[in-house]
């Protein structure tokens, strides 16, 4: 990112923070948390200890960070190197991101950037300019993507409550600031469990590693009545609904499953991972030393803010998480597809100088498809 863009973004972010200190808070137990931040074009600064909102606000004003983070873990000595921090416990967190949900990139919302010649163009298998296949993908605002991540969050919540016994009222959902949601489970019995245990929880939620025996399929003396039933609890019930669709289908489909044999049923279970497993990012849940984007801070991948979601159904990230002002500014934009922010449509812009509200300009600059002029 060039120096002019960095200055514009730093100033914009700083202005946002100054005007929205009310959105940015340290957690209840700040002296046990590790904080971190990144600057534009800079590396990560970690192992920082902050004791109050005031110290946080000062850090934001002094350092003009591109991104701000806070650990879900609590440590005795959060500012020491990792091996000396003395890990105590960590909130359980899940990350559901649109990129993990889609089988292919949404055509109308994706751009490609060639790693060889830097050309930006509409979705393609190779660069139309130099034919290179080394491409990176840039996803712009996509309502369908948000809709499917929301559906996934609802399914996750159900499992957390029904299976894992988590009190629904304690679950907190945050929009990640780009194209996903972070689901926090504070003050639960799971706070003390380590990384391996959390890997098991993610496998459970993702429906990974299941075996036919779990669903009543035995290698010998198989009886179709032992297959899952609709009113079974946990994955048995969910699998029954997925397998049979309706109760009246059960006898016929059960017979087919039994005739198909053990190996085929195992294969089916593996395939079901994609259809009924919840698509969380397992690495996020398993990592007990991670620092997470701080709620209330801006995500420099988009210029949108990570915020608490009160009503998931009504929540529209492209309106509710867009806090940058609408002062018109000039940018050189290279955005060959249309996108929509704060209910306004922008683009396509073909390598042209355009005047757009600052929130749209910042969004494009964060996505790497515009520069200040």
């Amino acid at each position: 990112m060039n120096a002019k863009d960095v200055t514009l973004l730093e100033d914009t972010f700083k202005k946002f923070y100054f005007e929205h200190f009310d959105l940015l808070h340290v957690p209840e137990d700040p002296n046990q948390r590790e904080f971190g931040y990144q600057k534009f074009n800079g590396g990560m600064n970690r192992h920082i200890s902050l004791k109050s909102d005031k110290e946080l606000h000062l850090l934001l004003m002094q350092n003009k960070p591109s991104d701000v983070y806070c650990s879900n873990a609590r440590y005795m000595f959060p500012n020491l190197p990792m091996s000396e921090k003395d890990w105590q416990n960590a909130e359980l967190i899940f990350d559901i991101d649109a990129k993990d949900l889609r089988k292919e990139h949404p055509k109308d919302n994706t751009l490609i950037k060639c790693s060889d010649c830097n050309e930006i163009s509409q979705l393609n298998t190779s660069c139309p300019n130099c034919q290179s296949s080394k491409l990176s993908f840039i996803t712009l605002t996509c309502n369908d993507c948000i809709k499917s991540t929301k559906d996934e969050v609802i399914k996750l919540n159900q499992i957390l409550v029904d299976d894992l016994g988590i009190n629904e009222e304690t679950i907190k959902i945050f929009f990640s600031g780009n194209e996903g949601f972070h689901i926090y489970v504070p003050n639960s019995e799971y706070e003390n469990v380590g990384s391996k245990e959390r890997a098991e929880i993610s496998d459970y939620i993702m429906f990974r590693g299941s075996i036919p025996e779990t669903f009543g399929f035995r290698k010998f003396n198989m009886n179709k009545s032992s297959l899952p039933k609709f009113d079974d609890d946990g994955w048995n019930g969910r699998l029954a609904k997925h397998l049979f669709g309706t109760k009246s289908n059960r006898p016929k489909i059960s017979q087919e499953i039994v005739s198909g044999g053990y190996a085929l049923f195992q294969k089916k279970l593996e395939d079901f991972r994609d259809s009924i497993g919840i698509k969380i990012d397992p690495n996020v849940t398993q990592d007990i030393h991670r620092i997470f984007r701080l709620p209330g801070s801006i995500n420099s991948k988009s210029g949108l803010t990570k915020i608490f979601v009160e009503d998931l159904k009504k929540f529209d990230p492209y309106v509710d998480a867009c806090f940058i002002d609408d002062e018109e500014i000039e940018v050189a934009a290279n955005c060959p597809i249309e996108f929509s922010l704060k209910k306004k449509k922008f683009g396509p812009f073909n390598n042209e100088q355009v005047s757009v509200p600052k929130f749209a300009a910042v969004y494009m600059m964060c996505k790497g498809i515009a520069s200040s002029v």
Partner: protein
Amino acid sequence: MVNLGNDEIVKYPFLTEAGKYLNDKGFSLEQFGSDPDLKKIVDNAFDRIITSSEGRIFKSDPSSNNSALPLEIFSFLIAVILLKLSGMNTLIRRFSLAEARRAEKFLEKDLMNHQDATKTKLSLQILQELFSVTVEKTDETFTILVSDYLKHSINFHEREWKLINRRVTNGKVHLTPHETVRLVRKELDRHIYTKINSSSTPEMISGFETYVDKLKQLAKKFEVKTVESKEFPPCIKHAIEVLEKGENLPHSGRFMLATFLLNKGQTVEQIAPLFKNAPDYNPKVTIYQLNQLSGTSGTTEYKCPSCEKVKSQDLCFPVPACDNIINPLQFGRKRV
């Protein structure tokens, strides 16, 4: 602490303090080496060790415990003394596992004891006090908190123990009595092993020398030598292929590949060129990250992830030779 009667000490002799128990019963260790009447107990203790070394469980003979001298308690305690005198760790390991499995059988039986509720209560109490596992009885099944279950189940590699293969409702895992007890086998084993290891080793007792020598000889049988092939496991081969093609290998794949090669003894300089074709290759970052993984820049030397982890990251492409290994580093390792 659990209040134990004689019946319980027979079943769970590791819950006693050996020296104190012998003293309370009016015996000294020396007597076992010299008193011909007590020789039977030392023979029993020796047999108990031999049985465990063969991977079998010492069979209880209830009648032998009805006498004034509960033979099985004594044989356990003397076995521990013989093992300590031999100093053979491999025999202590086998002994603690066999004793854990023996106790497991009793625990399971007691958990299912419908006639005598105090037996069930006591076994639940043992689980609570020794392993901090709160088990609740609900009709025919037992339930434990998911978080407690996970702390123990992660020690198992069999897929049936994965949480996904359990009935989980309302934050609790449902288990049969057998599974409840099986869940803590490793901890039971560890408990017995630690207890034996932390007990002090007495001076050689006159009359025990032959037994101890025999145990030292026996331990030699269990020395294991291995050979290792130079071939890489399929997950590593796949990761290298992806990089060679210039395709993007996810972070988890890069971590696996780098830690595998570092753990196999390759240097950062030898490994770095492998990442040259990665679409986001940056030589400085690569060297920095490899140095972090190798422990030269930080304090932690990272280990190659387990097969289970590799599988969960969709990086596993197993071949028959992968059977029975739990970490890619074990691929091609054979006992001779």
